[in-house]
């Protein structure tokens, strides 16, 4: 197999390698300006790859369905827009895994019910506070002043108790983009990928598709990987906590045995032309699960009309109730 052509997009800077692909434009920005690029030493070679599981036809159909579903605040012409350009790209990323040991402190809310005396006819929610000041030791509680007639009502309150503990987990499958053309948040929205279908990388695996080379070294994504891992741990910990509610959650996570492995993930990148005077809309499709991600342009007058209607209804409701 011939050596891949090493090129960089002149407009967005994406580092691309083409094996057996004839291409004239950058899959990310559509630019036809390419600059020759020499491979950088610190850029890793991919270790694993998730292969494309859907073909271009399926991706195109998913995008057309997605465009058809954007109706309320989006440009109506999107429904009849045409897919102008469609490319399968292996996007570079790092797969992070580690051992996470977390120490947490939290206030756990436990609900309980209590019967209280409230003035007859008072609105629900106006019962006395659930934090009742206790008298000093030796002091007698002051007798309540005679007030209006009262009735008894059962109210639900929350008692907060301090809890401290530890949590252990393996952080796995944290995917962080190392692409120059695909932002981290875009790749995050395309996830998840099914890593049970992971394969060891070989050039033949990506033949026929555009393979973007690594724009970021592993050291450059370490912080982002740890932040994503911390978020994964926090998410698990929030589900782990007992009680009916919680507050003041403080987490300290220590990661050990970190592993950051270069992996290629499949993404279909489509350019959708919906108006002649506007640039094409970029839509991304997960090459494995067909999840569609894009930012359809909003029609602002529609949004403003909707906001006005909501505000008018709220005002009307308030007037009627008051």
């Amino acid at each position, binding site marked *: 197999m011939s050596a891949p052509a090493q090129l960089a997009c002149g407009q967005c800077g994406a580092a691309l390698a083409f094996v057996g692909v004839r291409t004239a434009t950058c899959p990310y920005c559509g630019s036809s300006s390419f600059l020759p690029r020499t491979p950088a030493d610190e850029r890793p070679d991919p270790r694993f790859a998730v292969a494309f599981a*859907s073909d271009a036809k399926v991706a195109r159909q998913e995008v057309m369905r997605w465009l058809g579903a954007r109706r309320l605040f989006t440009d109506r012409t999107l429904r009849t827009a045409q897919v102008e350009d469609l490319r399968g790209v292996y996007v570079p990323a790092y797969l992070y895994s580690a051992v996470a040991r977390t120490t947490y402190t939290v206030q756990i809310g436990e609900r309980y019910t209590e019967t209280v005396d409230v003035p007859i006819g008072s609105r629900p929610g106006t019962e006395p506070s659930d934090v009742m000041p206790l008298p000093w030791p030796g002091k007698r509680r002051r007798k309540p002043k005679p007030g209006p007639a009262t009735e008894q009502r059962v109210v639900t309150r929350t008692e907060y108790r301090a809890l401290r503990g530890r949590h252990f987990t393996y952080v796995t499958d944290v995917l962080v983009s190392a692409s120059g053309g695909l932002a981290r948040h875009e790749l995050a929205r395309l996830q998840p990928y099914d890593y049970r279908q992971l394969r060891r990388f070989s050039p*033949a695996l990506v033949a026929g598709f555009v393979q973007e080379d690594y724009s970021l070294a592993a050291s450059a994504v370490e912080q982002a990987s740890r932040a994503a891992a911390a978020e994964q741990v926090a998410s698990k910990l929030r589900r782990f906590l*007992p009680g009916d509610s919680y507050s003041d959650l403080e987490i300290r996570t220590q990661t050990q045995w970190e592993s950051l492995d270069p992996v290629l993930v499949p993404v279909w990148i489509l350019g959708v032309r919906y108006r002649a005077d506007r640039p094409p809309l970029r839509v991304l499709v997960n090459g494995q699960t067909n999840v569609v991600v894009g930012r359809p342009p909003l029609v602002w007058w529609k949004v403003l009309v909707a906001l006005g209607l909501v505000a008018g209804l709220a005002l009307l409701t308030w007037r009627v109730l008051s």
Partner: protein
Amino acid sequence: MSNPCMRCHTVLDEGDLRCAVCALPVPVIEHKHYRTVYPEVLRCTECAAAITFVPAARAPCCAFCGATMAIEQPHDPIERAERRVPFGVSRTTAEAVLRGWFATRGWFVPRALRTEAVTESLAPIYWSAWFVTAQATVAWAADSDHDARRSAWAPHSGETTLRFDSLCIPASRGLTHDECAYLAPSYDLSQQLPIGDELPEDGVVEAFEAQRSAARAAIQAALDAQAAARVRSHIPGTRIRNLHVASMLESQLTDRLALPAWIVTYRYRDRRYRAIVHGQRPDVVVGKTPLDVWQVLAALAVVAVVLAVLVLLSTGA
């Protein structure tokens, strides 16, 4: 079997790219026994040209020269038993113990069952199960009534180390989970025979019907459930709710075993029932038996009468 994972010491299976427990990538080591060659990627067998992948086509052809291509499949094999525990109960014994088992089924079983039940089939089968040995550091958090104040519940947390020794996780589709759980503790696992390419003649070996990736998810879920059950004894108080465990498994070793059992199908008055006789212990039988509706109604009537008398007595007092 390859070297264990460096991070969690779990024993890796052949063909693993990453550890099944902690996801640490497996280093590429040229093992002599890694001779199995899996199909290479989607590629033209003629010109190795660039190809557009068309999964719908299943057996695609090269876009350039029209020759056939090979599709690489991720190595996710169907699980199969590696060893079996031999039968220790003969067909005659299995049939005989079934009649004795009918007598032990209690009051509500028809008295005529022993004489009128007709055995339709008696089939020897090896049902499949994973036996997992692992160690886990388990953190738990739960509400219990211990140290409760205004609310009936108070939060508690803790951590412990658990060891799972040959924990049986049924992989059978033919037997229910309860049936497997009843049979499993009575097997003598010291008597194990390898299952080679030739299947045993004394029984049908049930397939796991699970790919390796799905099997691992099932094992993980079973271990988590087991950890949750075992940490209950560590939680103070008498009532527990919202129990959550976070377990970090280490040194996991999974054995895939085939366990012997006699599957008995019998007919009683036009209805079919199933019982399972343990393949090694004839005194262990599990299954379903018919109910004598009249005997159940009679018992209910007796209970109702007793309750009525008690109510009358208490009212009179």
